[in-house]
């Protein structure tokens, strides 16, 4: 059996290391549990934009005529603000946030096509239902406050509404990637705290949180061992109270104490003062009392007290229940 004092020592030092983070985890956990998912999405003023135009489809240039010699993995027909385009990908990353490799061609002329800031601003406005005025579209470098994983350049259009909406759009196609506002920024902050993602990687696979998770697991494991360990000295159930003669600085009295309660707690509740730092954890070794009757020596007693002291009848009052004593002397 692992020594209780050692276990309790581990528990104390680990909690010093992870205690505040535990509070952050559970606090942000309460936020996720209670949050309004609709508001936290940032999409308060978002609507979908239809881009389809009416260019006659018979004018579309065949894909085989495009001036592109390298092998491709896909070519799609897309519409951007009424303009038909071919979106050709030479690589197919599994995530949209990964760096993209693709080129746009005008579907009728077959010439390379580039979006203009005015188009971007117009698309942002069409995706927005709120009262704010749009700023100019600005091409912005990652990292972004709405998703740390995003590796691509994005256009940003800001609206001067009450929740400070920012609209992020794809650098080449102008597709709306995200709406971000004060509610979604709060959620992002909570995720950052929960994932300890202070480097804004957008994820939770980093060394800092792994170290904290290992420490937390050890803390919780030691805690469970401590919490469910029974005091072996419990008296039989039917005996609820026990009489103990207590000699203290103010004199001597006989008290009726709860039989199954550790003596330290029983004495404190009776208004007597016993010194303690650990509050009954068996780690500080301060709650010493002296007794005349024989009380079995526990591991914890032996840890804190010398053989002489044990011989004199000294015991730790937090490690023994009241019914083990008939008479005690307090320091």
């Amino acid at each position: 059996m692992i020594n209780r004092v050692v276990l309790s020592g581990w528990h104390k030092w680990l909690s010093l290391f992870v205690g505040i983070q535990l509070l952050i985890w559970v606090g942000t956990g309460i936020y996720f549990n209670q949050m309004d998912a609709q508001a936290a999405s940032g999409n308060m003023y978002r609507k979908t934009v239809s881009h389809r135009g009416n260019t006659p489809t018979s004018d579309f240039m065949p894909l085989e005529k495009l001036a592109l010699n390298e092998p491709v993995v896909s070519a799609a027909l897309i519409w951007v603000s009424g303009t038909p385009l071919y979106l050709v990908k030479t690589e197919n990353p599994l995530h949209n946030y990964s760096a993209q490799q693709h080129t746009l061609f005008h579907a009728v002329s077959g010439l390379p096509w580039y979006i203009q800031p005015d188009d971007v601003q117009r698309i942002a406005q069409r995706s927005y239902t709120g009262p704010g005025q749009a700023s100019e579209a600005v091409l912005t470098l990652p990292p972004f406050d709405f998703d740390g994983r995003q590796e691509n350049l994005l256009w940003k259009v800001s609206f001067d509404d009450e929740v400070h909406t920012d609209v992020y759009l794809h650098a080449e196609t102008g597709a709306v990637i995200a709406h971000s506002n004060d509610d979604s920024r709060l959620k992002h902050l909570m995720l950052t705290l929960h994932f300890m993602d202070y480097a804004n990687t957008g994820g939770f696979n980093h060394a800092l949180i792994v170290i904290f998770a290992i420490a937390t697991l050890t803390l919780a494991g030691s805690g469970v061992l401590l919490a469910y360990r029974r005091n072996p000295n419990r008296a039989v159930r039917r005996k609820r109270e026990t009489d103990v003669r207590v000699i203290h600085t103010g004199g001597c009295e006989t008290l009726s104490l709860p039989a199954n309660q550790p003596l330290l707690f029983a004495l404190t509740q009776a208004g007597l003062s016993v010194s303690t730092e650990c509050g009954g954890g068996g780690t500080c070794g301060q709650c010493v009392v002296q007794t005349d009757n024989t009380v079995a020596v526990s591991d914890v007693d032996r840890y804190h007290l010398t053989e002489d002291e044990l011989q004199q009848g000294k015991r730790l009052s937090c490690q023994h229940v009241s019914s083990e004593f008939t008479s005690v002397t307090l320091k």
Partner: protein
Amino acid sequence: MKTLAIKSRTLHKWLMRFIGIQMLIWAVTGLYMVSLDIHFIHGETLSDEKHTAFPLNDATYPIASLLERYPTATDIVLYKRLNTLAYRFKLANSKQWTVIEATKGGVLGLLTQSEAAEIALHAATTSGTIASTKLIDLPQATPAELSPRWLPVWQIKFDDLAGTTFYIQQATGQIVTRRHTYWRAFDWMWRLHIMDYDDGENVASPLLTLLTILATLAIISGIILLISRLIPARKIAVNKGGVHD
């Protein structure tokens, strides 16, 4: 300070006796989730699709002809389905993909079992062999690890240690979902973490509310106890000595 230590210890101990097991579960599941790479969990290492590249000028059937034949076609994409260059697109009022080949324009039927198996073997990075192939086309027959929006799909199971499974869309031939044991374990870790034991989609359960509030109290009492253990109570002990005199 002294009674504060005793009170906070008592509160800490009793609260933790009620929720200690869940604290341990949060710690175990959290450690599992942060220590395994999420891209690995999502099965991104189970397949690679580099063999799917093609030269654009193989696409001799023009999109203009496609749109003449199917005027309501949207989401048109030129891609390689197994060994055939093809267009996939959606038609108005249909959730399913239509696929035609991109050289002559002939309609491509749904993937056969052996074609699906071939796609899986081409893409798989596992050294295992295929243990079973099964067509899943009914929402009620969809396993929990697959979203019904992909149906109909071929389920291809490998006999490797990780229990690799691919889901290949029957019309397009695309591998839409990749699963293995580590994902399945992750899914359970997540459910245990958020205390939603049926489908793992609800972080707003009242049970979680109760446990997180109790946990907050337990942690705060623990922190108070920690502080009172770190700031020595010797001063108080000395004062008591004074009384003794």
